[in-house]
């Protein structure tokens, strides 16, 4: 299954990926102001990866 991995140390919680994702309820902001991705609903368009200003998101091919 493809998806996107979040590097929590790099994520600053700016939410730009949330505004970039065409899928609803996939990227969520946690209480610690980091994003989590529900990969089972992700279509791997990688818009979030290209939008992330801190390069905290990477394609996960595992």
């Amino acid at each position, binding site marked *: 299954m493809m998806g996107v991995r979040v590097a929590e140390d790099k994520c600053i919680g700016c939410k730009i990926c949330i505004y970039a994702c065409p899928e609803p*309820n996939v990227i969520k902001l946690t209480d610690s102001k980091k994003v989590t991705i529900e990969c089972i609903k992700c279509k791997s368009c990688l818009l979030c990866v290209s*939008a992330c200003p801190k390069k905290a998101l990477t394609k996960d091919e595992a």
Partner: protein
Amino acid sequence: MSNRIITPVKEFEDLLPQEYKDLVADGPFFAEKGVDDLGTFKEIMEQHPHCAGCGEALGMRLVLAGLPTPQDTLIIGTPGCSFFGLAQTALNYSNTAFGNQNAVASGLKRMLQIRYPDKHKDVVVMVGDGGIADIGLDYTLHSWFRKEKITTIMLDNEVYGNTGGQESGMSKEGKVLNMAPTGKKFPKIPVFELAKTSGCCYVAKVTIASPKKIGKVIRRAILIAREIGPTYVQLFTPCPTNLKFAPDQTLKVAKEAEKDYYPFEEFISDDAAAYLAKVEQAKGDGKS
């Protein structure tokens, strides 16, 4: 629909799917949410069959998050790509014959005004460029001439997406598409300018690369349509499948279009501006 209808009966609450329970507990119905709050609440749109990287799906998601009162909103659609996502929303949604959306919306708005004289029921037309600029142009223009109090939102992906890539009136001049191999022969139909001269009180043009602006213009368009008259929002939502770019480039394409030929524009009539200033001051908002 209203919050009373959304609230489940206690005895049957356990039987409802988890998505519904989340919507009641954490959705935008009982607490006002906006585009700024995305990622922290359960959105009214659910998983949809749009292609990966679809600009239209992103546009719809942002528009739906920007609705001021989703429980009192009725969305009218028409065949096209927009239908796939809108059919997966927790909203009252009505699909119409191709191009009839503004005529149907006019009738529903009038009926709702009679049925709920003390309440605002927002009728929002959300359709693609084919439904507004080509097949439904006459109904759309006439609803504006008649000053129907409805909001019309065009999801402009510049192509007929779900039928394989025919040129639409909103395709760019010279654009070569799957079923327009020699390129389009005439420029984009100026629906934005037509709206201004046809009686719309509020007209805005925005792209999916500016999510906060989408929240702001949708809120304004719906509030003005409640009291003053018709409003129109044109949203550029590029299509990776038919405009032939990689799905992760959708926002880049939208940003380039914003710089090139799709700049943010807003027109507001004097009476609408006065009304909006009054509403925004009363609510102390300015929130998207």
